[in-house]
């Protein structure tokens, strides 16, 4: 899955490199028109393209598999008989899912930086606020964006963990988690549901553009952290409540 994620920026870069015609500004994903001029933008465009579907999908697969996958293999009972306490098992599984979130976001970022540097010139980056920052600082910003995206996925991972405790069929948990992430984004697009939007775990997913300003607007980072933390607490507690009382019959 990480390899597939890493392939996204490669695809973008190669596509831009092969088409001679200039990409008109305002068409395609944000910043796509900048790629030919500065390879660093491959990473940013890659992130924009992966955050709505591809990244949540991979996180849904990993987090949906956490408990249900063990149950499906029948290894859950042996882990608990080893004995691993249920709280401990849940914690380790969630930390594993978080590690995947970070690895996934970094894969897109680093893959984008590498392929961008290989195919295009790289140099100082002009930010959304009009300021220009040096190459080193720009790379740092991209790593920061990866951190923001990883943070954005924590809530979804917690939801997946909870769903995973509900079933012994991992595919079901994965699908349900993926569907929820899409459904949340659809709800987020309906203006009639304005009151709901701040509560959706997808609400701040695109907020990482604020990291491309000078000075950095940390507001969205903070709101996102709070939102994701809330989801982690609520769904972590639900997952624990479910697993600690569940009869392990798989």
């Amino acid at each position, binding site marked *: 899955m990480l390899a597939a994620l890493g392939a996204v920026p490669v695809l973008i870069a190669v596509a831009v490199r092969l088409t001679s015609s200039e990409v008109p500004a305002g068409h395609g994903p944000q910043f796509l028109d900048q790629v030919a001029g500065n390879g660093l933008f491959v990473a940013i465009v890659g992130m924009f393209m992966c955050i709505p579907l591809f990244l949540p999908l991979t996180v849904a697969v990993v987090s949906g598999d956490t408990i249900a996958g063990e149950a499906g*293999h*029948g*290894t859950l*009972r*042996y*882990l*608990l*008989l*080893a*004995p*691993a*306490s249920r709280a*401990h*098992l849940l914690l380790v599984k969630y930390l594993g899912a978080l590690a995947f979130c970070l690895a996934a976001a970094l894969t897109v970022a680093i893959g984008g930086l590498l392929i961008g540097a290989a195919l295009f010139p790289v140099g100082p980056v002009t930010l959304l606020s009009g300021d220009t920052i040096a190459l080193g600082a720009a790379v740092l910003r991209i790593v920061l964006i990866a951190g923001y995206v990883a943070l954005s996925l924590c809530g979804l991972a917690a939801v997946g963990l909870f769903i995973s405790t509900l079933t012994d069929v991992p595919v079901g948990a994965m699908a349900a988690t993926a569907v929820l992430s899409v459904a949340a984004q659809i709800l987020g697009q309906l203006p009639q549901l304005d009151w709901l939007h701040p509560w959706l775990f997808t609400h701040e997913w695109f907020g990482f553009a604020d990291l491309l300003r000078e000075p950095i607007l940390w507001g969205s980072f903070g709101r996102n952290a709070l939102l994701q933390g809330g989801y982690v607490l609520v769904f972590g507690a639900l997952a624990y409540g479910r697993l600690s*009382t569940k*009869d*392990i*019959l798989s």
Partner: protein
Amino acid sequence: MTGAAATAGSANAAASTAHTGELAIETSGLSKSFGRRHAVTDLDLAVPHGSVFGFLGPNGSGKTTTIRMLLGLASPSSGTINVLGRPMPTAAKDVLPRVGALVEGPAFYPFLSGRANLLRLDAANPRADAEDRRRRVDRALETVGLAQAAGLAVHAYSLGMKQRLGIANALATDHELLVLDEPTNGLDPQGTREVRHLIASMAGAGTTVFISSHLLSEIEQMCTHAAVMSNGRRVAHGTLEELRADGTASAVLHTPDEQAARAVLARMGLGLVEAAAGTSTSTERGAAVVPEGGAAVEASPATDTVVVRGAMPEGAATAEEIVAELVAAGVRVRGFAIERPSLEERFVALTGEGFDLAH
């Protein structure tokens, strides 16, 4: 397996002599229901320390559900469980490290090697010593004869090899209690023998072994104690001798004088149950257990000898008295024996015959 001739004693399965403090597993009033289905009903078990305890019952009789409750995987609907002197599932953290288990068949990650699987499960045990983990796992693999295949991914294992790996997992750390759910499932005769030896040596070293099985012969060869389950209820419980003695004995008489013999037996208080076409031995008859009070006669066309069976209720006349009476009445006695039902007959009698599973 046919019961030996014996006087009708009543070494009944009254009570095992063990006291509460000496029990490795004790349950009382244990019940579990899933919705409206009662998987286990009002189960009392007493497994003495150091015993090899057979937990016998046909498929779907609640054995595995009981084992899941004993190990804290499922919580009982009602009743109490003590394992190694501690209540379950509340004391699971202290009890489970002392218990090795194989529950409802082995389960492993197919893409990890056998050794890696065991190492992973051992790493999940906070009490296991990480330093000699590799040594303990390798020793366990060797014990079950998997040393050669330990590096192979589990998806390449046969069912029997997985079963061995499951047993190895139960042996990786030293345990006071082994709970083995159908341990010889899928094993070849050689493997079955090895498991039997293994269990005997574990028991010899003082480990209590709790084995569930639907195979009577397995229980009969390995166990000192047994409980029989049927439809989620315990229908028998005790040492193997007690279980054998439990059934009603029957007198088997070979005689050409059927009518006279029947009359005598009836007078002696025996319920006439069956008279079969018998030439010489009684082994030709069907394996059905003797229900008290029925009656049947079957004459042999080949010979004039008829086999008459009479159920001997407790406290009835002894064998000598019956024979003396028969002879006095002029019945030609060509053969006489007292038979007890074999364990298999007891098992079938207790759990019912046929393929319709309980549900």
